[in-house]
């Protein structure tokens, strides 16, 4: 079954599953937009945008329900096997992570609205923007990896997660020191560290999606493999 994926030319699954994949990608696109808008709201102090992001989360939830039902239908009527079944499982897991990312974006949107009312620091949340862009890229890459069924791209995302975690730690520490400097800052930097936390979580969910893709393509479960062994395991043996 693996040779279905080993060639570079794009091969399609059957009609039903193709439609399902496109639906997941559409949900992914919506979530990408939500995260992007949420970060934009933080960086530009746009409370209206932040609230809109929070309001629109219902769309993400609706899509999860719809795709879930579709998956159940396919499972029941087609009784898929092997690669098709792995795809279905990957879809079900991915939409769960996407829905969680949507929730994090909602949280960030609400915090953006709150932060907009406070005085903006001179750095203008530069670090949050940087972390945000980093995380958006991870999400985008993991969804691309799913589209292309490319395990190599997926691995890069998994490796990125480490850097994101480090960036988050840095921001966290900086917030703490700023809060200690001046108690009036506490309110604001508590919010900032919540935003950073949400972003870091989004990074984790993107990593999960990449891991599902690797499982889908290679039939290997790498979820608890050490990072340095990852490349060897996935690319090394061409199965």
């Amino acid at each position, binding site marked *: 079954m693996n040779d279905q994926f080993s060639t*570079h*030319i*794009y091969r*399609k699954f059957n009609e039903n599953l*193709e439609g399902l*994949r*496109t639906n997941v*990608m*559409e949900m*992914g*696109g*919506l979530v*990408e*937009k939500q995260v*992007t808008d949420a*970060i*934009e709201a933080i960086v530009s102090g746009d409370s209206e945008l932040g609230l809109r992001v929070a309001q629109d989360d219902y769309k993400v939830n609706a899509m999860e329900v719809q795709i879930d039902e579709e998956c159940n239908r396919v499972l029941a009527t087609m009784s898929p096997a092997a690669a098709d079944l792995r795809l279905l499982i990957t879809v079900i897991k991915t939409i769960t992570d996407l829905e969680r990312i949507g929730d994090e974006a909602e949280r960030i949107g609400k915090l953006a609205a709150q932060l907009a009312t406070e005085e903006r620091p001179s750095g203008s949340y530069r670090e949050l923007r940087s972390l945000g*862009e980093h995380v*958006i*890229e991870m*999400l*985008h890459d993991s*969804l*691309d990896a799913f*589209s*292309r069924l*490319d395990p190599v791209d997926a691995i890069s995302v998994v490796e990125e997660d480490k850097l994101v975690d480090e960036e988050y730690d840095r921001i966290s520490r900086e917030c703490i020191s700023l809060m200690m400097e001046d108690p009036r800052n506490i309110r604001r930097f508590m919010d900032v560290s919540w935003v950073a936390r949400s972003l870091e979580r989004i990074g984790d969910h993107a990593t999960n999606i990449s891991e599902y893709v690797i499982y889908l393509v290679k039939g290997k479960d790498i979820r608890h493999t050490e990072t340095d062994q990852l490349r060897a395991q996935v690319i090394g043996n061409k199965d």
Partner: protein
Amino acid sequence: MPNTWSVTITRLVVALVAGALIGWWYGSVAAGLFAAAMGLLAWHLYHLYKLDRWLKTNDLEDFPTGLGIWPDTFARVSFFRGRARRRGKRLRALLKEFRLSASAFPDAGVILNSDNDLLYFNKAARELLGLKKKSDRGQRIENLIRVPAFLEYLRNGDFSEPGEFQLLPSLDVWVSCRIVPYGPEQRLVVLQDISRSKRLETMRRDFLANASHELRTPLTVITGYLDTLEGDEGLPDYMQHPLTEMNAQAARMRTLLEDLLRLSELESSELSSREERVDVAALTSAAKQSAKALEHCPDKVEVKVNSGIGILGVHSELQSVISNLVVNAVNHTERDGRIEIHWDADDEGGRLSVVDSGIGIDEDDIPRLTERFYRIDAGRSRDKGGTGLGLAIVKHALIRHEAELEIDSTPGIGSRFTCIFPPNRLA
């Protein structure tokens, strides 16, 4: 050549007769015929074998020799093969030309089939959209370009206007997209990077808002002092007139700044919310009252509200619309003229019009009326305190309400300004 066939048939007959004769000579005609027939068959089969073997090679020139009808057949096949090959070469050259020009094409071009599969994309598309040369062909475009605005535009089917959207994952890249259906099921998608012009637009808007805001403060100070001075009893008489003038001009500046700020707010392309229902009867009667309060207002101002249907939108913006239209009407109509305010609405839409019997507008001026600071008769409207921004404000407020402005006018007779609201903005 028909001759070849007749020769062949003749040869066939001769061979069979010869066989029969020889057979007769040796005692069995049948055996002789049979042998001759078999010989002929073998001979033809041999040539067929030669043909088959030759066809398997790619050789064009070196076709086998033969006897009888076979050389002709070989030559013909060779000719057709040659022609097909030349045709293929020409097509490939044409295709290469096309590919080169598509590569040079500065905008991103993508060809889709009816399933939205990527049939082809040029170099600019690869760079702009991050597509991979070999592996992405055949993939559905929705799987790779997932921006909700793009998907909506693609699926909507209404390609009369280009679509604009942010290209994720970047926050800064904006793209303008046109889709052109051609052929039985193909579609051409052309994407242009408009990040620069978007940035300029934002900069301009921000500048406008900031400048207006900053100018307000010193203006308030000036106005404040002018007010105080004007009310001062000990003021020498000769200063009275200059002060009044200064106050009037300062007031004009304030109105101008307010209008500029209003305009920059309205220029954002977001549509205004549909949460609030605005009652048109109340809106128009308030407009009538403020019109009457104006100095140059004509005596006859009528309001005709023919429907109880209201507008979904923002009250303050709609108020700006009608107030600006009415003020324009007042400024351009004589004392003994007439102004009418109409409201009609049904399933097809709503029409809010301001009609006047004023001096009218030249046909040439009409298309430019809603431009900022555009004035037909600069001296006249400046005297009357106009800012030149009124219609620009009306236009943008209407855009935000998904409505259109229609202007009809006859010089010397009057003008009619109609705001047409779509059904989804009525309630």
